[in-house]
C-alpha cells in the first residue's frame, strides 16, 4: 500500500523536556489511523510534526504527498471573524490556486450545512459553526493526507456525525487519515490502525481491532 507519510526515530524536545522519542511509523493511503494517548502524551505535538508545523529534534519525517494535498483540521478554526463564510473559503481557495467562485464554494458550505450563513460574518458563528466552516476549508482541498486533531471538539451530535461521514468518505477516496480522538472506543470501529503514545514512546502501532480486543481503555 502506498505510504503517504513516514516518521523514522522521531524525537521532539522543548528545551530539556522530552515530549516523545524514537517514534517510527507510517501512514498508508486509504486508511484511518487513530492516534491515542493520555492528556499531555504529545499527540498534538506529534501531529504538528506530521503536518510540518513543528520541527523535529531528532529523526526524520518524510512526506510523500505535495503540500497542497495535505489537510489539517485541529482545535483552531483558521477563521477570519470579519470575513463572511464565503469570503473565508474564497481566500483559502485562492491560496491553494483553486477555483474561488461562488458556484464552486456554495456546495461545500451546503455539505457542512452552512449555506444559509454563507454571507454572514463568521465572527458571529458559534464554535461548532466555525469548526464546520473549517471542515469545509479542508474538504475544499480534497487532501490525500488528512490530519485531524480532535476535530469534533465543540461539535454537536449532528455535526459530529457529519464529520465522521466526511472522514469515511475521505478514506473511500483513498486518503490517508491520522485522527486524534478523545473517544477511542467509539471511533475505533472506523479505524484501521492505532498508534498509542505512552511514556514518551510509541507503545503500540498496529491493528485497531487487535488493540480493542486487548481490552485497552482510553
Amino acid at each position, binding site marked *: 500500500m502506498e505510504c503517504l507519510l513516514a516518521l523514522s526515530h522521531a524525537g521532539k524536545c522543548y528545551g530539556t523536556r522530552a515530549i516523545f522519542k524514537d517514534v517510527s511509523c507510517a501512514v498508508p493511503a486509504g486508511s484511518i489511523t487513530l492516534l491515542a494517548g493520555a492528556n499531555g502524551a504529545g499527540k498534538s505535538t506529534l501531529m504538528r510534526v506530521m503536518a*510540518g508545523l513543528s520541527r523535529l529534534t531528532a529523526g526524520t519525517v518524510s512526506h510523500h504527498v505535495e503540500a497542497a494535498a495535505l489537510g489539517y483540521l485541529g482545535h483552531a478554526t483558521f477563521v477570519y471573524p470579519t470575513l463572511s463564510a464565503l469570503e473565508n473559503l474564497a481566500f483559502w481557495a485562492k491560496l*491553494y490556486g483553486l477555483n474561488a467562485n461562488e458556484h464552486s464554494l456554495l456546495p461545500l458550505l451546503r455539505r457542512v450545512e452552512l449555506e444559509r450563513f454563507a454571507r454572514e460574518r463568521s465572527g458571529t458563528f458559534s464554535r461548532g459553526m466555525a469548526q464546520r466552516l473549517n471542515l469545509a476549508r479542508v474538504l475544499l482541498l480534497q487532501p490525500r493526507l488528512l490530519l485531524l486533531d480532535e476535530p469534533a471538539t465543540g461539535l454537536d451530535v449532528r455535526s459530529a456525525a457529519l464529520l465522521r461521514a466526511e472522514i469515511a468518505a475521505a478514506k473511500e477516496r483513498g486518503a490517508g487519515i491520522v485522527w486524534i480522538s478523545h473517544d477511542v472506543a467509539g471511533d475505533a470501529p472506523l479505524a484501521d490502525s492505532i498508534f498509542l503514545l505512552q511514556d514518551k514512546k510509541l507503545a503500540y502501532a498496529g491493528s485497531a481491532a487487535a488493540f480493542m480486543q486487548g481490552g485497552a481503555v482510553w
Partner: protein
Amino acid sequence: MVAASWHIAAKDLRLCLVRGGGLVQALLLGLLLLFVFSLSQQVGETMSAQGAAAIFWLSSAFCQVLVFNMLYSLEEVNASRLGLLLMPAPVQAVWLGKGLAGLVLLLLAQLIFLPASVVFLGQHIGAAWPQALLMLFLVDVGMAALGSLLGALSQGQAARESLLSIVLFPLLVPLLLAGIRVGSAAFAAAMPEGAASWMGIAAAFDALFCGAGIVLFSFIYAGDD
C-alpha cells in the same frame, strides 16, 4: 509565491480598509505627533524644512509599528497562522504579502501626514518634490521590508510585542536619516547636498532588509510556539 503574497495582501487590505480593521489608530497617533510638535512653534514662526521632515518621518515610523502589529495580529485570532504555514507556497510569501499590505497602508497614512505637515508645521511644497517623493518610496520599501520581518517576531506572547519597537527603531536609523535629509527637499527651495548618496544608501538598506526578510523569515514565522 507572488500569487499567494498578492492574495494575502489583498485580504489584509480588505480587512484593514473595508472592514474597519483599524488604520485609524495609526493615523491618529501620527496626526497627534504632528499637532503636538506644531505647538512648539510661536505664532508666525516657521520650522526648518529638515525639522518638519524629521517630524513627518517620526509620525511615519510610529504608524509603521502599529500597522505591522495590526497586520500580524489578524492571523492570531483563530491561529490562521498555521493555515498560512500549510499553504503550498514558500513561507516568505507571508512576509511579502504582509510587506505589500503594510507598504500600501503606510503610503495611505503618509498621504494624510504630508498635507498635515504642511498645515501644522507651516511648510510649503518645494520645487524638488519629485525627488523627495522618490526618496519617500525608497524609505517606505525598506520600512515595509523590515517591519514585515519584525512584525512576525512580535506576535505571540505579550512580552515579545515590545520587541518590534525596541529592535525596529535602531535598525531604521539609516533609512530615516536618508528620508529626513532628502525628504526635507519637499519643503525647501532646493535639493540638499549629497542627495544622490543618501538615495544610494536608502536603496542599499532596502536590498539589505529584503534579503534579511527572505533569509530569516522562515526561522521567525513557524508553527512551534
